[in-house]
C-alpha cells in the first residue's frame, strides 16, 4: 500500500463514519467528530506559530540580522493578557487586550462599513437610473423602489401605517424575493458539498478497492 492510497482510505473511512450519523448517532460518528475538533485545533495552533508569531512577532523582536527591538514586547504582553483569561484570577487582564481588539475593529469598521455598504450602495442605486432602454429603465425603477421601500420596512421609528405602511409592504415583497433567492442558493451550496464528497467516494476511493484486491484497474 502506498501513501497516496492510504490517504484516500483514511479520507474514505472518516467520511463514512461521519455519514453513519444519518442513520442515527453512534460511536463511530462521535469518534471522528472529536478527532476533527482536536486535529483542527492543532492545525490552527501550528499555522499561528509558523505563519504569524514567528515571522510577525518573534523575528520583528529579534531580527535575523541581530539586535533586539523592544517595542514588540507590547503586543506580546497584550497577547499574553488575552490568554490570561483562562485563569479566573488573571481573567480581568484580558480586558486590556479586548479593549485594543474592540477599538481597532470598531474604528476600522465604522468608516469602512459606512463607505462601502452605505454610501457606495446609495450612489449605485441613484446612478442606476441613468441607464437607457425601456427594460433598463423598468429594472432601474424596480431597483430604486425596492431599496427605498426595503429601507422603509426597516425604519421602526415611525408606525407602519398609511403611506409608510404601504411602502413597507412593498419592501417586504422585495425582501421575500431576495430571501427566496438566498434559499435557492443555500440549497445549491449544501448539495454541492454533498456532490464533492460523493465524487471523492465514487471516483477516487471506490476504484482503489479492485486495485488492492489485485483485480487490476
Amino acid at each position, binding site marked *: 500500500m502506498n501513501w497516496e492510497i492510504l490517504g484516500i482510505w483514511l479520507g474514505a473511512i472518516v467520511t463514512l463514519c461521519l455519514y453513519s450519523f444519518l442513520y442515527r448517532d453512534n460511536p463511530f460518528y462521535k469518534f471522528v467528530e472529536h478527532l476533527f475538533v*482536536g486535529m483542527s485545533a492543532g492545525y490552527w495552533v501550528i499555522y499561528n506559530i509558523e505563519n504569524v508569531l514567528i515571522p510577525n*512577532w518573534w523575528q520583528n523582536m529579534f531580527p535575523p540580522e541581530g539586535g533586539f527591538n523592544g517595542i514588540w514586547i507590547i503586543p506580546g504582553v497584550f497577547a499574553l493578557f488575552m490568554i490570561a483569561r483562562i485563569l479566573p484570577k488573571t481573567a480581568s487582564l484580558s480586558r486590556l487586550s479586548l479593549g485594543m481588539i474592540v477599538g481597532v475593529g*470598531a474604528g476600522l469598521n*465604522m468608516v469602512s*462599513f459606512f463607505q462601502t455598504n452605505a454610501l457606495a450602495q446609495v450612489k449605485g442605486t441613484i446612478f442606476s437610473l441613468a441607464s437607457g432602454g425601456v427594460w433598463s429603465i423598468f429594472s432601474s425603477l424596480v431597483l430604486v423602489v425596492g431599496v427605498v421601500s*426595503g429601507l422603509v420596512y426597516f425604519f421602526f421609528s415611525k408606525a407602519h401605517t398609511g403611506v409608510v405602511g404601504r411602502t413597507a409592504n412593498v419592501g417586504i415583497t422585495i425582501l421575500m424575493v431576495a430571501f427566496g*433567492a438566498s434559499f435557492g442558493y443555500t440549497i445549491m451550496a449544501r448539495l454541492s*458539498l454533498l456532490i464533492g464528497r460523493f465524487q471523492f467516494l465514487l471516483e477516487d476511493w471506490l476504484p482503489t478497492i479492485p486495485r488492492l484486491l489485485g483485480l487490476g484497474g
Partner: protein
Amino acid sequence: MRLVIPLAITFTAGMIMILNFFVPHQPFKFLGENLQEWYMIVASGAIFLGVMNLMHVHSRKIRLKQKNWKYSPVTIIGFLLMLVTGLIYGVAENMPFDYLFMNMVAPMSATMFSLLAFFVASAAFRAFRASNWRATLLLTSAFLVMLGQVPIGAMIWDKIPLAKVWLMSIPNTAGQRAVMIGAAMGVVSTSLRMIFGIERSWLGGAD
C-alpha cells in the same frame, strides 16, 4: 480603574484607526500601521486562548468522568498529533502535517458540512409551505433560482437562466442592498458607542 483603562485603550485605538483613514499622514500613519501589526499578534493570542480552553474542557471532562468523556482523549490525541507533526516537520507540502491535513482534516471538515444537504432537504419537505402569497413569492423565487442555476433549467426553457440573472441582479440586489444599508448603519452606531464607552457589554457584563 479596572474599567477606565480598557475603555481608554478602546477609545485611543478606535480614534487612531479613524484618523488614519481621514488623515493618512504622520503621525497617524505611523500609529495606525503599528496598531494594525500589533492587532495581528493580539488576535493570535485569542486563537491560543480558544485552543487552551478546548483542552481545558476536555481534560476536565476526563477528570470528572462526565458524559461522553471517553471521546475526549480522541480530541486531545488529535490535537497533539497535529501539534507534534507541525512542530517537527513544519507546514511544507508532502510532509506529515500536510499529509494529515489533506487526507484527514479536509475530508472530515468537508463531510461534516455536507451532512447539511440531507437536513436542508428534509426541512424543505416539512416546513417550506406556500401558506400565503408572500410565502408563495419566496417559493417561486427559490424555484427560479434553483432551475436557473443548473443546466436542466435551460433544457426546460432557455429563458429560465435569463430570468434568474434578472431576478438576481434587480429584485435580489434591491432586497440585499436594503438589508446591507440598514446593517451598515447599525455597525456605524455600534462602533461609535464602543469607541466612546457607551456600549460596554464586551467587558463581560461588569459595570
